[in-house]
């Protein structure tokens, strides 16, 4: 399995983004962004030859289509999420505009990340539709639709119904779903709080720029103090400007958090699918039990369960032995089919639980590793910010002491 992982053989990147205009489905002019996907064999770089990478352009909606296909086709896998469709948790500096170059750039990185995640997944990386997404620019959409995956998708209503009515879901999945809820809630909160703090921090740094201006003006009227003031003012300007880089780096951290915010959703989707398969098993089992009971009643002539047939027969007299015989035969067939169905569904359920749990364990390890790395990189960012602050204020102090 390891050898099949695409990423071991190929280097994949989302190299560029470009604006395009064209007619959309309703024949209206629209502007959209396309992303250049490049693939080249891993060995090529090390051999020294540098062949032109295979490349093609894709837009965000095509990525969405790919992901939807994967979701439906591999409901037992925690499918990697796409970067957000619209900018959320923004603080005042970032625009929420999809055409904003910073947003586009961060999306480019997110899309590359998505492809890398899929390409390094033991199961997903072998998918043919995924491969053709990377290699066949034209006609890919049609190929996807031809798989008929949309028909296999579970309706939301069906899934919701199952969630409410399932009686014995696997405990581990129930816990995982709960965990997914908590993860989503806490990361949302973290992103909100962080965005507000970033906004405020921006204000603090920028106001120091006013020091720069006033020091400069003041230095004009002083003789001995002038030089010290003037140069201190420059450092204040530098301090004010430094916040832009600081917050840009923090944005990257926020993106890492966002990925897991969306992963939480993918995790919950797997749990919901389990509930659905379990529910369908329970329904089939319940149906079988009721049919068996009916057979028993018919055979022994006792009516334990309430049925319209029972009431009418009481009112209008018992049916003929031939009629009873026919009914029994039908029930027997149905019971046979029912038992097959239960066996089938049971196997499906077990299979699902087995595969899903393997992927959930894999996801857990990945999550623990990635988020730990993210926290470490956050600490490194803070350290860098502190070092810059120390440098600026030491410089300013020197200038002040020359006042």
């Amino acid at each position, binding site marked *: 399995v390891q050898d099949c992982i695409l990423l071991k053989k190929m280097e994949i990147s989302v190299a560029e983004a470009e604006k395009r205009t064209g007619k959309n489905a309703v024949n209206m002019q629209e502007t959209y962004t396309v992303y250049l996907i490049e693939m080249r064999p891993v060995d090529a770089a090390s051999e020294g030859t540098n062949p032109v990478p295979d490349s093609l352009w894709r837009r965000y909606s095509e990525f969405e289509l790919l992901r939807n296909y994967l979701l439906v086709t591999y409901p037992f896998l925690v499918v990697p999420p796409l970067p957000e469709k619209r900018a959320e948790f923004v603080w005042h500096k970032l625009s929420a505009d999809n055409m904003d170059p910073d947003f586009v750039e961060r999306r480019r990185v997110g899309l590359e990340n998505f492809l890398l995640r899929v390409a390094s997944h033991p199961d997903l990386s072998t998918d043919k539709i995924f491969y053709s997404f990377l290699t066949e620019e034209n006609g890919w959409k049609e190929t996807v639709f031809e798989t008929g995956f949309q028909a296999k998708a579970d309706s939301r209503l069906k899934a919701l119904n199952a969630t409410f009515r399932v009686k014995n879901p696997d405990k581990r999945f129930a816990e995982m779903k709960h965990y997914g809820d908590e993860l989503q809630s806490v990361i949302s909160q973290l992103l909100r*709080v962080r965005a507000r*703090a970033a906004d405020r921090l921006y204000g603090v740094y920028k106001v120091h720029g006013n020091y720069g201006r*006033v020091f400069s003006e003041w230095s004009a009227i002083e003789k001995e103090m002038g030089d010290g003031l003037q140069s201190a003012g420059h450092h204040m300007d530098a301090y004010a400007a430094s916040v832009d880089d600081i917050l840009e780096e923090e944005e990257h951290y926020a993106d890492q958090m966002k990925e897991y915010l969306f992963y939480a959703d993918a995790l919950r989707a797997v749990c919901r699918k389990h509930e659905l398969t379990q529910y369908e098993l329970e329904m089939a089992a319940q149906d079988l039990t009721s049919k068996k009971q009916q057979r028993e009643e018919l055979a022994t002539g006792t009516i334990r369960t309430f049925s319209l047939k029972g009431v009418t027969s009481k009112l209008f007299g018992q049916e003929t032995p031939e009629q009873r015989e026919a009914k029994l035969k039908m029930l027997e067939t149905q019971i046979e089919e029912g038992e097959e169905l239960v066996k089938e569904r049971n196997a499906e359920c077990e299979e699902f639980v087995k595969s899903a749990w393997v992927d959930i364990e894999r996801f857990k390890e990945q999550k623990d590793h990635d988020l730990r790395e993210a926290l470490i990189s956050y600490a490194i960012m803070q350290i860098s910010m502190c070092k810059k602050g120390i440098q600026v204020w030491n410089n300013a102090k020197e200038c002040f002491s020359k006042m």
Partner: protein
Amino acid sequence: MFTALLTFKKNVDTTLTDGSSFNASMQTSPASMINQYKFEEDADTKDIFVTVDNPESHVTAIETYITYRVMTKTTRSEFDSSEFEVRRRYQDFLWLKGRLEEAHPTLIAHPLPEKFVVKGMVERFNEDFIETRRRALHRFLNKIAEHPIFSSSEDFKIFLTAASGELTSHKKQGPGFLSRMGDTVKAVAAAVRGVRNRPQEFTEMQEYVEAFSQKISSLDKVTQRIVREQKEYLEELKECGPTYALWSQSEEELAEPLKNVAGCVDRCCKETEEQVKNLSDHLIPVLHEYVLCADTLKAVLRRRDNIQADFEAKTEALATKKADRDTMRNDLDKAEDRLEWANNALKSDWTRWQKVMRTDLRSAFVDTAERNVSYYEKCLAVWESFLHSQRTDAEGNGKVDFS
């Protein structure tokens, strides 16, 4: 050095306090007096130490007020003892300042903290208000003690040493209400008249004071704004730590690093809180005092102008009127001496004031820069300890690569 000036000053004090008339029986000529007005500053031989502390509330039938303990340690011979401890209230400080300004209209006295102005719900007996005022009163007395002329004022000595009853009776001895009214009328008249031939250097001083006043006000406002922004940043930051802590409760492997990050964020919050307090307690009061200084300077320049206007008026009167020529000549001589006196006093004190201002503001800004460096150093240590803990953890588990 001081003794010679003191004997000289004793005579001047008594004559100037009973109105504007100059004692014509002065032994020394104006020229030699001017020479003796040169301030030789022996910064190393500080022979008087004053502290203001220990605010206490006093309740009487009529009012409630605060007194402060004023302690003096001195080796000066004109003091009866080497240590004194008295209690003074704000009114007493106001009285002292008024006396000093009356005696020396063109010397620059350090400003007092402002009278209580009702701003919103701030209580007059609010702890922070009292502490801020106490510090400002302490600085005021120290500045007076450091001033070569003010520090040898009889009123200053009485302020530092007299028991409350003594002080009250001494206060009553000053020039009567009517004579003070007379001064005010003369001052208004002079102001209305306006000065005709202001020497260039005083015009330059006025232009400087205008500009300085604007710049220092701006700095005061900028600093206050920084404090406000910092406080708002702090409010948001305070929510980050608890969010990480909450998250850690849902996690297993990640619980420890998340708790750790929560702790780090909380510690940084504390440091930020302290930094805000430092700005409020150290930089803002100094800037604020120099805003008030600018107003003092403007008043001093106005008073000088009035003295000159008075002289110019008397000159004109002598030229035009025929009667009482002897008295008028006498008056004119006095006015001329007064003007020369005032100008030289101002010129010398101006130089001294600029030096003091430069020292004060330089050390205030250097201090602020040092505190900012210290703040960043502390935060740096917090995050480095987190990295260190993750490193040792990882090396133990053989997980993370820090390259």
